[in-house]
């Protein structure tokens, strides 16, 4: 049902400016009082105080690469994240595993993996499509750099930010 909003008619007292200013000040001072008593807290003194503890597990911060429990590279450079990335921030150069690795014949690894953080929009599609659970959006949100080149996260940096994460991938598991 539609209803017409009531347009209040101002009383004589309201038409005088001063009473309303006093009423407005009363509301503001009430807020001030609560603020001084510490009942309401509006401002967070960033960066001394941070919101990090409240961030949910699935918070979409900087994308990173992760290794598995044994420190092995998860990414197999399938380039699906490179394909899906809406702003084309990811650039992967596929490569192979070192020849002495016993998985060298069956697996690949990225030779280079660059994410241009000045293009990244933190949408999380890369994490969503990764079939190896290799790329995760971590909780880092303050990504800074002094030049455009600084804003490109190379493979080493991505692994440093990502750390390791247990996952579902069983391919390394001998008793799969």
């Amino acid at each position, binding site marked *: 049902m*539609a209803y*017409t909003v009531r347009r209040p008619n101002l009383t004589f007292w309201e038409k005088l400016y001063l009473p309303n200013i006093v009423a*407005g000040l009363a*509301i503001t001072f009430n807020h001030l009082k609560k603020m001084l008593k510490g009942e309401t807290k509006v401002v967070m003194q960033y960066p001394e105080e941070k919101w990090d503890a409240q961030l949910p597990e*699935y918070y979409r911060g900087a994308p990173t690469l992760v290794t598995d429990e044994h420190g092995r590279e998860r990414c197999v450079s399938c380039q699906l994240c490179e394909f899906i990335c*809406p702003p084309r921030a990811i650039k992967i150069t596929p490569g192979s595993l070192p020849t002495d690795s016993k998985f060298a014949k069956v697996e690949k690894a990225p030779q280079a993996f660059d994410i241009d953080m000045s293009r990244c929009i933190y949408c*999380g599609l890369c994490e969503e499509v990764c079939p*190896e659970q290799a790329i995760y*959006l971590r909780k880092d949100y303050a990504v800074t750099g002094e030049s455009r080149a600084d804003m490109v996260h190379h493979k080493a940096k991505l692994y440093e930010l990502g750390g390791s994460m247990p996952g579902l991938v069983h391919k390394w598991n001998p008793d799969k």
Partner: protein
Amino acid sequence: MAVTSQPFEQPDTLTKTQAALQHLAAGNSGASDLLGEKLVLNMGPSHPATHGVLRLVLELDGEVITKATPDVGYLHRGDEKIAENMTYNQFVPYTDRLDYLAPLANNVAYAMAVEKLMGWELPPRGQAIRVICCELARISSHLLGLGAFAMDTGAMTVFLYTFTEREKIYNLCEVISGARFTTSYTRIGGMTRDLQEPFFPMVHKFLDEFIPSLDEVDNLLSRNRIFVDRTKDVGAISKEDAISYGLTGPNLRGSGVDHDLRKKHPYLGYEKYDFDVPIGSAGDCYDRYLCRVEEMRQSVKILRQVLDKLPKGPITVSDPKNLPPAKTEVMTKMEELIHHFILHTEGIKAPPGEVYFAAENPKGELGFYINSKGGGVPHRLKIRAPSFVNLSILPKIVPGHLMSDVVAILGSLDFVMGESDR
């Protein structure tokens, strides 16, 4: 219906010039202001009251505006063209950046449009979650609209109080989607994740605290003579004008037209919820303000109803051919892995055809027109942005007002340029 604004009479420039010449001929000096010249004033594109990058070319006679030409397009990013070059799911993050004050509602409207093309309907829980998203976005957007409007008309405090409330909505967005601002929450056929447990106590706490806070804002503004003087009978839009200029949302309802897509063409099960549509009577800035305040109260009412009887069950449609398989399956099974790759590279298998879906967004009717030739990429995607259409009324209502009224009118129209220029 009483329209309160007077039609503006164009001053006769010729007469004024002649008078000025006679004045000069009589040996007087300093009469340049009598020459009847009009001043062209650029307002924006970087003016705090134009809420983004709107440029208004104003023609002034003294302090009275005789002509106003909005110049839009400073924030054009070619979103419609971008959509033609990516799969349907890849475009979701771009919808965040249309009306960036209510990204959740944009996500929902876009996903609904593609789902209409696919002929899908979400299960009840999915629909209920989307209603929660839409209404939270509506409150958030109206709070900013209200705060900015009040600040433009000289009430700074309101802005700070509404932003305190908005901050809580951002916290809710973070729990819903994992991002505070660019939510990208929906996917074609569902959502990225179900509502998590911490969300429910948070949203109830927010709703309990929100109404007193809104009352406070109401007390500060609605009966405040300074605010009323600046908004009452300013920028009045008649019912006929509002319809013929294609206005939607609170701007249309402020003019007394009872049109709300949630009521007229219910989607997402809005017909199940008990809520009213506030409409205005005079169509001035004050009415638009009152409508927004009332709409927020109605949104709270809807939210309480949804949360009270949130259905259980799946949140995505069941169409295994067109939905990515669960991550656990992708990790462990070959067929699912292949399907996962095909689906993300080629996109969903949409049928050829065209659809138009419009949702009642905070700013008005956000419509997506999709022309599909089949496959995972739209052949053409047109976005009907409410802010763009709402701005078209400026040349009609601004002339005849004073410079300072323009600020009030722009504030009351509550547009966002990300959507207008898209």
